[in-house]
């Protein structure tokens, strides 16, 4: 038996030693694995760094190639521009010179004629060349030449020639002729895709810079635009939405410090606040339109400058046929400016091109002019014109916003104060609410006071005292315990009265607080309703102002026959 135990112990020791070695080996393997893992992480990091550097290298290489390519191509594009349209630039330079020469009267007619004819030979397809010949012919009363040159210019680009002569003739105060050209120009425009610069012309016409005749002629074109646009499907809804957005944008915020008690006491506050903001908007709408129509309308001096700028732009701007090459040039230049970063360059180039070629429909142009005059570059005169022309839609949208605000005004205001809830109708009586609130809190207080009873631990202590006391007869040692329980029960019983009094007092305090908050909330509600009524009445002032804007002094032609009256 002893042998067996000895063998067993030997074997066990051996096993234990082996296990110890195994453990040591496992730890060594673990260390190796950790080491390998660390090396792998380091390797990963190095590989990532290498990949990043490789990407950087590729990107730099790509950019360098793009840059090189752009630099080579831009030279070619410029050469092509120079070869094909180089003389256009010459014509443009001379056009400015000729206009200045005619202005100053310091160059002889012969020289001007020679220059213009020279230009004509140099730029065979360019509209500006024959236009300049016509201008020079007109300046020296050579009617046949002027007419022939004009016919040629018109054959090349009617729109630009019409605008050119409208602007040039206005410059020399030939208002009637200028008006005819202008009318021609307006008649040819597409009301769904107008250049943003048109607002400058419209401004000039509206402020009378082109004379009375231009006003009525252009007015006719504009009336046709409105008729065309109005007839298009979905136009009315779009126009309605446009003006709704414009007026809603004038809605003010209701400050967090306003009607604070009501806000805290009423779950309806969000609706009340939204509705108050909606009726407060009337004041802002009124102020906006009053500012447009207040005061005397003077032709601003800068309108004249703007017209001259327009002439400069028209003369100096690249022609449509040059545009593809010019765009290529600008695109390549952008790539060069961005050091070969083609994506960034194209992104920027696209936004510039979009801004330049952006067109707007006539009604959008009017809305911009009426609501954001400064950004749209519209004067007070254009603003008046734009408002007068959009008047039926503005009134309709204002009416709708007003009616919606009236409809959505919460008729019943909910109140929730410290667990008490009630709904205040229009003719809600403060006394009734106060009495309801008092009843609620009185009931709450009563419940709280009634809940303070001789129950729970004190009652258990009393019962325990009785039982243990009886047992104490047999075992006097327990009497001490019975006395302690009895003392606790008596103490708890004596505390009932002051606790009830405290609960009563706390209940009264809660009621007083709630009463105060209710009174304050109702006072604020009265103020709120008074303000609402006052603000709501301003909707009618806005309406009166807007409906009064039908005078011909604002509108080029009347637009009051668009709607038919039933029966």
């Amino acid at each position, binding site marked *: 038996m002893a042998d067996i135990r000895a063998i067993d112990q030997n074997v066990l020791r051996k096993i234990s030693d082996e296990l110890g070695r195994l453990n040591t080996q496992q730890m060594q393997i673990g260390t190796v694995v950790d080491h390998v893992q660390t090396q792998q992480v380091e390797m990963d990091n190095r590989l990532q760094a290498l990949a990043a550097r490789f990407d950087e290298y590729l990107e730099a290489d790509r950019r360098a190639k793009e840059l090189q390519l752009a630099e080579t191509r831009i030279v070619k594009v410029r050469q092509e521009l120079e070869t094909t349209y180089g003389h256009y630039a010459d014509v443009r330079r001379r056009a400015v010179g000729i206009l200045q020469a005619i202005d100053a009267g310091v160059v002889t007619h012969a020289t001007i004629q020679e220059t213009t004819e020279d230009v004509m030979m140099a730029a065979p397809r360019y509209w500006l060349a024959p236009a300049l010949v016509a201008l020079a012919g007109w300046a020296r009363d050579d009617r046949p030449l002027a007419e022939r040159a004009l016919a040629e210019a018109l054959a090349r680009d009617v729109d630009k020639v019409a605008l050119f002569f409208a602007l040039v003739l206005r410059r020399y105060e030939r208002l009637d002729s200028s008006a005819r050209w202008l009318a021609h120009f307006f008649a040819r425009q597409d009301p769904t895709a107008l250049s943003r610069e048109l607002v400058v012309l419209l401004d000039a016409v509206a402020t009378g810079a082109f004379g009375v005749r231009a006003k009525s002629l252009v007015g006719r074109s504009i009336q046709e635009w409105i008729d065309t646009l109005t007839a298009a499907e979905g136009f009315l809804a779009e126009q309605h939405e446009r003006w709704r957005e414009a007026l809603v944008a004038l809605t003010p915020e209701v400050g967090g410090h306003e009607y604070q008690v009501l806000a805290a006491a009423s779950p309806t506050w969000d609706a009340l606040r939204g509705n108050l903001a909606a009726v407060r908007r009337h004041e802002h709408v009124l102020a906006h339109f009053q500012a447009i129509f207040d005061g005397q309308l003077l032709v601003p001096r800068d309108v004249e400058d703007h017209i001259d700028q327009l002439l400069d732009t028209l003369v100096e701007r690249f022609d449509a046929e040059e545009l593809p090459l010019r765009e290529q040039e600008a695109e390549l230049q952008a790539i060069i400016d961005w050091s070969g970063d083609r994506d960034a360059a194209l992104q920027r180039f696209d936004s510039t091109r979009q801004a330049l070629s952006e067109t707007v429909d006539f009604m959008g142009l009017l809305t911009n002019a009426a609501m954001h005059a400064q950004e749209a570059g519209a004067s007070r005169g254009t603003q008046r014109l734009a408002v007068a022309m959009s008047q039926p839609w503005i009134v309709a949208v204002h009416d709708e916003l007003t*009616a919606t605000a*009236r409809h959505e005004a919460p*008729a019943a205001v909910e109140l929730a104060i410290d667990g008490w809830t009630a709904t205040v109708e229009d003719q809600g009586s403060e006394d009734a609410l106060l009495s309801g609130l008092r009843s609620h809190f009185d009931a709450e207080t009563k419940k709280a006071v009634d809940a303070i009873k001789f129950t729970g631990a004190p009652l258990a202590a009393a019962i325990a005292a009785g039982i243990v006391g009886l047992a104490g007869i047999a075992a006097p040692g327990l009497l001490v315990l019975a006395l302690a329980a009895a003392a606790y029960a008596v103490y708890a019983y004596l505390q009932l009265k002051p606790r009830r009094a405290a609960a009563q007092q706390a209940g009264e305090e809660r009621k007083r607080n709630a009463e105060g908050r209710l009174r304050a909330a109702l006072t604020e509600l009265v103020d709120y309703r008074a303000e609402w009524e006052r603000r709501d009445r301003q909707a009618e002032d806005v309406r009166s102002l807007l409906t009064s804007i039908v005078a011909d002094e604002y509108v080029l032609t009347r637009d009051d026959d668009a*709607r*038919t009256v*039933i029966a």
Partner: protein
Amino acid sequence: MRVVDRTSDGPGHQALLDRPRSRRYLELAARLDAGTAGEIDVSALAAAVIEAFPVGAALPLGLLSRCYLGAPYEVHILDLAGEIVEHYAAGRPLPAPYAGARHLALHPSYVAIEVYPDRYVCLREDGTATPISS
């Protein structure tokens, strides 16, 4: 004429909702007070009101307007389908969908409210009609 035949509410009808109402129509709407309190038969009047709507225009379920009979009456409904006028005293609830238009009908800016299944059209004295979602 069956009223229900013309109360359909397609997109074509919507466009006609905001057309200005004629003076004659507004006068007809105002004559609702001519009766006495309670439900009265106004089939001739209802027919005349319906006639005032052009072909293709959606017909309202009825008209809700301020009542001038005096207290306790506050508003009345001209039910075009039932061809009756019913006067409602203050505090007496209106049936749906008229209930939501009570405040609008009492607003001094509007002479009457046309009530459609999904919208109200507020009518001003000058004939302006403003449709809003109910």
